[in-house]
């Protein structure tokens, strides 16, 4: 029992509560930024703790929580994403009246994500996933005056609830097979079972868990909510869904598969591999013709989930290592991309359409460069981080004897190049059209900072890939070796 190990969660919860309290307390005008400050400070403090805590596994609440290199490293992904989301909405006109709720919900969702990746038990895992989901349902619909925001909220809610139900059923069956909710217990129990064929319930459990987590990670064919919700939700929220949720879902995948059910990996590798293949193909093909950049990024996030799933499908530590590295890269790229979309939305009407980006690079070269680097990174162009991530993922696939995953991944990447570069082309190949640039606003510093930081991270992660990979390797090892 070492309750202190969960200090990060306490700080986050406290910040959440404080922010939500501020929502009901009338604040003087001079303090109107207080909720954002609370959020930022809370996140930075938590991040600092998470850095300091880096080390061997500490167990809190009788094994309900594992604070180890794995969960901490994922926390390093989740928290910057949350911070970025708060910075995105800094001074966002649409959320003017609901700053505190917004910040509070973001913090709650981030807490849920952290809980998910720190969990050492099915129950905590479930609570974490639900906490982040419920908070995000509300965040999606937070612009209550906008019909599409509401629509995305309810769509996410309904489909998400189905996912929850499937997840709980899967957990129930797993519990039924193993008689324990503890992940370590599950591992220990499965060691005594001779393959999956011996127990149809285990098969059903695995299928349902894969489906439910696939839903959270936007894997095909459980991805259908993604484009609609991403498009309709306020863009900062979309960015958060694209990054934090993805990280949490992938963390859960790793915990449950590469970690807890490693023994039967021979049985689920093909399933998750097939999922990865379908996801990569459909995600990329679906993105091909999108005219809305947010929607395109939604499809792209589906496709990216496919690449990430390669790291799960191979079932090896190397796969997990590659996955975590790629998560870092992916989060940096996605945040930078959404930062640019937000910039454009502030500038023009329906700034999330492809047409709105006509000549954007020529009008705002710096934003154009950031967006270009980001999209190139997403497309996997070397020497950017996205490339290294894909390289490692493909390598893990080949190493695990699943070269077909790498080949499909490569071909799917070719398709992805088309839609990523479409944006690049639109930005650079034409002069900005006069109407759209009528309203030129000053670039919000907070958003620009995220964009630049993201782009810098894309490059830095590639240049200093080795130290980063050392961290990822440590994290991946923590999955299987307590």
């Amino acid at each position: 029992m070492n309750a202190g190990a969960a200090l990060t969660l306490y700080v986050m919860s406290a910040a959440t509560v404080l922010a939500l309290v501020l929502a009901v307390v009338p604040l003087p005008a001079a303090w109107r930024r207080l909720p954002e400050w609370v959020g930022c400070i809370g996140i930075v403090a938590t991040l600092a703790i998470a850095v300091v805590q880096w080390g061997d596994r500490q167990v809190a609440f009788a094994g309900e929580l594992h604070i180890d290199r794995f969960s901490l490293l994922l926390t390093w992904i989740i928290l910057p994403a949350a911070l970025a989301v708060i910075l995105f909405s800094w001074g966002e006109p649409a959320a003017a009246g609901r700053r505190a709720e917004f910040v509070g919900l973001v913090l709650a969702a981030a807490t849920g994500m952290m809980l998910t990746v720190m969990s050492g038990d099915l129950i905590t895992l479930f609570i974490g996933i639900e906490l982040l989901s419920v908070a995000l349902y509300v965040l999606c619909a937070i612009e209550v005056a906008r019909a599409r925001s509401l629509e995305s909220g309810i769509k996410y809610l309904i489909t998400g609830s189905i996912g929850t139900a499937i997840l709980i059923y899967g957990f129930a069956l797993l519990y039924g097979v193993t008689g324990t909710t503890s992940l370590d217990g599950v591992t220990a129990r499965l060691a005594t079972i001779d393959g999956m064929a011996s127990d149809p319930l285990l098969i059903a459990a695995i299928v349902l868990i894969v489906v439910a987590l696939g839903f959270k990670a936007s894997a095909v064919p459980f991805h259908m909510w993604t484009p609609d919700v991403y498009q309709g939700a306020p863009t900062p929220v979309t960015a958060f869904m694209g990054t934090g949720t993805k990280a949490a879902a992938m963390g859960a995948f790793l915990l449950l598969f590469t970690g807890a059910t490693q023994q039967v990996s021979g049985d689920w590798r093909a399933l998750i591999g097939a999922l990865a293949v379908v996801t990569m193909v459909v995600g990329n093909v679906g993105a091909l013709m999108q005219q809305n950049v947010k929607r395109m990024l939604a499809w792209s996030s589906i496709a990216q989930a496919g690449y990430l799933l390669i790291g799960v499908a191979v079932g090896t530590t190397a796969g997990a290592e590659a996955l975590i590295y790629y998560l870092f890269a992916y989060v940096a790229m996605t945040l930078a991309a959404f930062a640019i979309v937000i910039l454009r939305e502030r500038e023009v009407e329906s700034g999330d359409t492809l047409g709105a980006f006509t000549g954007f690079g020529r009008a705002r070269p710096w934003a154009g460069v950031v967006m270009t680097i980001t999209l190139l990174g997403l497309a996997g162009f070397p020497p950017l981080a996205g490339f290294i991530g894909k390289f490692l993922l493909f390598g893990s696939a080949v190493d695990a004897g699943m070269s077909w995953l790498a080949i499909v991944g490569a071909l799917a990447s070719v398709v992805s190049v088309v839609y990523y570069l479409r944006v690049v082309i639109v930005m650079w190949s034409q002069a900005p059209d006069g109407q759209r640039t009528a309203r030129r606003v000053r670039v919000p510093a907070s958003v620009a900072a995220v964009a630049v930081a993201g782009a810098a991270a894309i490059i830095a992660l590639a240049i200093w890939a080795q130290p980063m990979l050392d961290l990822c390797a440590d994290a991946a090892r923590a999955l299987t070796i307590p």
Partner: protein
Amino acid sequence: MPWISILILIPLVTALVLAFLPARERRTARGVALTGSFLALAASIVVFALFDRDLAVLQQVDHLDWIPAAGVSWDVGVDGISIWLLLLTTVVFVLGVILACQRLPQQRGTIFLSLIMLAEAGLLGLFTAGDLVLFYVFWEFMLIPFALLIWNWGGSDRRSAGMVFVVYTMVGSLLMLVAIVATGIIAMDHTGQLSFLIRDLVAVPFDEGTATLLLAGFLLAFAIKIPLWPFHGWLPRVYSQAPIVVTILLAAVMSKAGVYGLLRVGIPVFPEGVGNLLIPVAILALVGIAYGALLAWRAPTMRLLVGYSSVAHLGFIVLGIIVIDRMAAQGAVLQMINHGIVAAAAFVIVLILARGTGTEDIDRLGGLAKGAPRLAVAFLFVTMAALALPGSNAFVGEFFILGGVFDQYAWMAVIAMVGVIFAAVYMLRMYQGTMNGPPRGVQDEGHAAEMTGRDAIVLVPLILMMVWIAVWPGSIVEPTRASTDLAVAPAQIALERPPDQIGVLRDMASADEVQRP
């Protein structure tokens, strides 16, 4: 001094400096770009001066671990196959920058120069990479500046042209990435550690099936880049839509990437697989030779004509490499340089003509020799080199390529000769169609198309290089000999060629003889 790294960094730094320059600083930008390109040239000359021509393996290696866990490193060096390509790159880019400075786009001129320098960095990196992953990095890296140049300043169909360029290339290159990964991992069984260093992988014996598969993965990427028939679909679009300066750079330098990769990576690393792919690839090359020639003959514009002729010319180079013969391979190495120079010169002439007449259509021009006699002389020179008239620089390469091919597979050489004949037909069509006949397409007998001093700055060095190679090709071939022999030797052994054909064995034998008495 890590000269090779410096060589790559010079254009990279120049590109960054240019990118940060305010758009109105056009004069400064010109100065920076010229300085950068000349510095790169100087660095490449230093590399050349330090080059040990008796050494077959990669030399002047700068090694820096990048991602040791993944076996990836910054590993650059130079060998006989790449030494001239480096000089070709730096020289052509100096000329390209001069051309670009002469007619700098009104919009974002600084960025234009910046992207050109970025492309140079990519190409120099590609030609020096000693690590497969690094090779891949540069392979893709150079796409982007070129694509951005096309998208920003290209012709009316620039969007799709650039897109096709990038996507088509990536179809091959991403599969190559998988092949690279697989190569490293399979080789790990042999070497015990993950390494993508080409010099490590050369020593790894693969079984025949694996080697064939992996080589096929690489070959697809190379075939698209070269381009080998029928993977040349991107070429006419890109060559005709790119700004012509970019077309010059693409045709002169970038088109060497594929054949360079084939000789530097494909053949030496997977000699066991060459036997299965030799005939198919050779047939594609032969078809390409004939096909490129036919299409060049009917091409409506000068750019397309030169573009399709590149398909044919590169077919010869591929043929020279794939038949696995040291004479043919050395001819191919020489021909890479020759084609670079000749293609650059041909496109410079297209540029001059297009500027003077406002059109690139061959059928809309005629009789320009009267008003532009100096250009006519230069054009004639380039035409003769392009159709590989015996005595021209290109003929030397072609002669030894086909001589080697004839030694191994006489029928291939005979078929390839069709391309030689057609080269005369289509090149003369371009020369005569524009320069001879009754005047057409211009006022004033074509004085506007005459070569000016500014054009001469670019064209004359190219012509002088052609003369140099024509007069003394031995000076070009000599430094390449050791590396080329070494590159084809494993495949020769795998194909069970007679030992007296294998350069490395011959050298060893003669070394023995020297020692014995």
